[in-house]
């Protein structure tokens, strides 16, 4: 149900520019106003969310440690530097591995129950499917996004050209197929399929889990349609996009409606981003269980709101238990506490 709702939403979103541009001829609105507004909402929303997180205190260092810590004897007990970092540099490497290689997800296992002749068995096997799907999706998306810089920069930077060359190195079809395009669609479909087919994952999925996947799929498909089938006027599009970057807006007449659909869907994604779970993108950098060294026993660390609380005073304790303490021969700070009430 949640998946159907999401699919329906995305369909409706496609219809808006379709009618808006084709029937209502609102080319400037869909080519300039919407994307510019969306970009502003994206930047402000994204930044204010991150700032809002940053405003909250990190009172304690609570890294989740995965491996041996730095022992008093590092030769005898070898530290697992990147799962149980002790220094800033080691923590940095941990974060790089986390962000670029999805290391925690790489560790994923799957549990299964078996009844054997020797009794019940709980088995765990490595399960890297989610890791693989996520890697395909995220890297493809990242490459596709970077490639789009060609439209916003003049001259086109060397790394964008390089990326395009490598991405299209298979030289299939004309225009040359980009591997990242295929990867992005495959990644979305795999993640979507997992959410639909795996009953447990389906059970925990809301509209807000399906919607971004369908939306990104629609973005990708509209982009692919433009490039491989509609073969839109790229020169004209670059004219428009450069106009956006240089604040001198132009909307050439030769741009076809598929472009406006693509741009509209991307705009929706930008607007949706800061208010959704997609904010895991900046969030992963700020996760206190991952981005802090495990050095709390060695180094002092300050809690900005540390409450002023004192322990139950020993003096009170001795007052309460002084008599039996004295009888048991336990030393007292104040010998008077050891006297029975009638003696005192």
């Amino acid at each position, binding site marked *: 149900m949640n998946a159907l709702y999401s699919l329906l939403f995305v369909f409706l979103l496609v219809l808006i520019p379709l009618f808006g541009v084709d029937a209502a001829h609102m080319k400037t609105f869909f080519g300039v106003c919407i994307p510019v507004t969306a970009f502003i909402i994206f930047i402000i929303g994204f930044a204010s969310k991150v700032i809002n997180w940053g405003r909250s205190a990190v009172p304690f260092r609570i890294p989740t*440690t995965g491996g*041996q810590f730095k022992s*008093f004897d590092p030769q005898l007990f070898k530290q697992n530097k990147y799962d149980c970092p002790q220094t800033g540099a080691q923590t940095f490497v941990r974060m790089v591995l986390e962000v670029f290689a999805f290391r*925690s997800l790489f560790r994923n296992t799957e*549990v299964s129950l078996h009844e054997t002749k020797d009794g019940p068995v709980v088995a765990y096997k490595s399960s890297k499917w989610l890791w693989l799907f996520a890697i395909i999706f995220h890297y493809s998306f990242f490459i596709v996004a970077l490639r789009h810089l060609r439209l916003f920069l003049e001259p086109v930077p060397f790394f964008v050209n390089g990326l395009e060359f490598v991405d299209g190195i298979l030289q299939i079809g004309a225009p040359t197929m980009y591997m990242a395009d295929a990867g992005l669609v495959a990644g979305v479909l795999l993640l979507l399929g997992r959410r639909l087919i795996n009953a447990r*994952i389906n059970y*925990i999925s809301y509209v807000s889990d399906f919607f971004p996947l369908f939306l990104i799929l629609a973005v990708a498909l509209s982009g692919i349609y433009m490039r491989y089938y509609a073969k839109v006027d790229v020169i004209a599009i670059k004219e428009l996009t450069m106009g956006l970057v240089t604040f001198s807006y132009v909307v050439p007449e030769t741009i076809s409606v598929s472009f406006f659909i693509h741009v509209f869907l991307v705009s929706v994604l930008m607007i949706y981003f800061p208010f*959704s779970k997609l904010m895991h993108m900046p969030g992963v950098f700020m996760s206190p269980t991952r981005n802090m060294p495990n050095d709390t026993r060695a180094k002092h660390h300050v809690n900005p709101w540390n409450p002023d*609380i004192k322990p139950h005073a020993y003096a009170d304790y001795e007052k309460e238990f002084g008599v039996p303490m004295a009888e048991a021969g*336990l030393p007292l700070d104040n010998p008077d506490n050891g006297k029975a009430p009638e003696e005192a």
Partner: protein
Amino acid sequence: MPKADELFKSIDYAPPTTGWMETPVDFSPGNWCYPAKPEKIQYMESKLPGLWGEAREWSPGDEDWKLPSNWKEIVVNGFRERLDKFRTLKLFMDICVRCGACADKCHYFIGSGDPKNMPVLRAELMRSVYRGEFTLAGKILTKLTGSRVMEEDVLKEWFIYFYQCTQCRRCSLFCPYGIDTAEMTMMARELMHLVGLNTNWIMEPVSNCNITGNHLGIQPHAFKDIVDFMVDDIEEVTGRRVKAPLNEKGHDILFITPSGDAFADPGIYTFMGYLTLFDYLDLDYTMSTYASEGGNFGSFTNNETMKKLNAKMYAEANRLGCKWILGGECGHMWRVVHQYMDTMNADLQGDQMTTPVNPITGTVFDTAAATKMVHITEFTADLIKHGKLPLDPSRNDHLRVTFHDSCNPARGMGLLDEPRYVLKAVCNNFFEMPAGTTREQTFCCAGGSGLNTEEILEIRLRGGLPRGNALKYVQDKHGVNTLACICAIDRATLIPLADYWAPGVTVTGTHELVANALILEEGEERTMDMRMEALPGYEDEDDDWTPPNM
């Protein structure tokens, strides 16, 4: 109580046909821990006002939980306050993508199949309220974003499921963003405490710890009696009358262990192990009745109480003039010591306290320079490495040993190899449980964070399935008969767990085995272990054997 194989067969991972928000919660007895006795709440309210709600008699099985009329305001305001005080909470409310990587990592889910025991959904119990009360999208789109407002049913659901989380953090290890359910459980419990939703198995230890110094409420003279009994027993086993200094001033080291070690089998054998070791070393140490608890039940209520109970350690070190603290075998005590103690209470450290130095080997524990607190397995490993302990591991030959990593030292510290090093030095037959169930991937005993209580025994045994099954594996494959651990809660909860899932395996602390193997003087002959059970070769002499001191 179902039999082990029946219980196993009853586990079904297929989710229910109703959505999780529509699936009712089972409030029948056995699904919840008993609420705290009113006098415990009143006592804590008098010490830390404003954190506990109104003391009252109530039962989770009743319709009416006797919540204060403004309960919703209290909980929502408390939530808002904690979003500012803990970035973890705020961030973890926003960034979960519900990928489900954590879903089958929780021992309670593995043993129950209840989807609300999947960490992702356990946290959604809280996130749904966060979205409904604090975010614009959640307010507008409600169900489409999985949001809801705070209702009494929601709070009641919290009570069941946040007291069905042992804060073991196994899910956090696997989460691609490190989302820590333990942190959210802690926050949910803080909020529930504000309106008087609590459990006696946490609140009674908390109030005991504050009054008597330990969670069992053992008064100082009784504590001394217990220690004296142990000294007698050690003499019977080893022929040596050990010193057991209590509340003595002028020693360099203060030794603090969980009071569970002073209370019952098999913890007391571990305690006897410490005493034997320290006496052999002639260590300049004292124990304390006032700071006679390493475990910190406050960490299961709120951070204020955690701080207050923890503060006793430094206060007592100062009063007795100790330079550093040696800590016994305990799970969550060590998470608190390692990740919280210095941050909370460093200002209470006296000038006399210094970076710990092992007086026998001269090793400086720079890794503990801030807290001034060393783990006993670090200390003992250091002694063994320097050859300071004459050991006869063959005295543990009747034991085939495996090691259970306690969750907190494993995932909240990284203490993995030291206990193994000690165990391998003191016993000849050591076997690891299967990969995926040890070290940072260890499984909880299902009794942590104040859930070690009998009224939820079936839940505990279900949660104990992953650990119990791994134990069964090494029992069948290697004939393992002993499960060593470094946690007092483990020593209490793993016994019924082993009896249920791997009958025939006993539970031991690591230092019990150290004391078994430790040669106290040259040519010494040991005929029984610390449990006064005959060592191999001495079984037949039981009848006419007389302890050497008689």
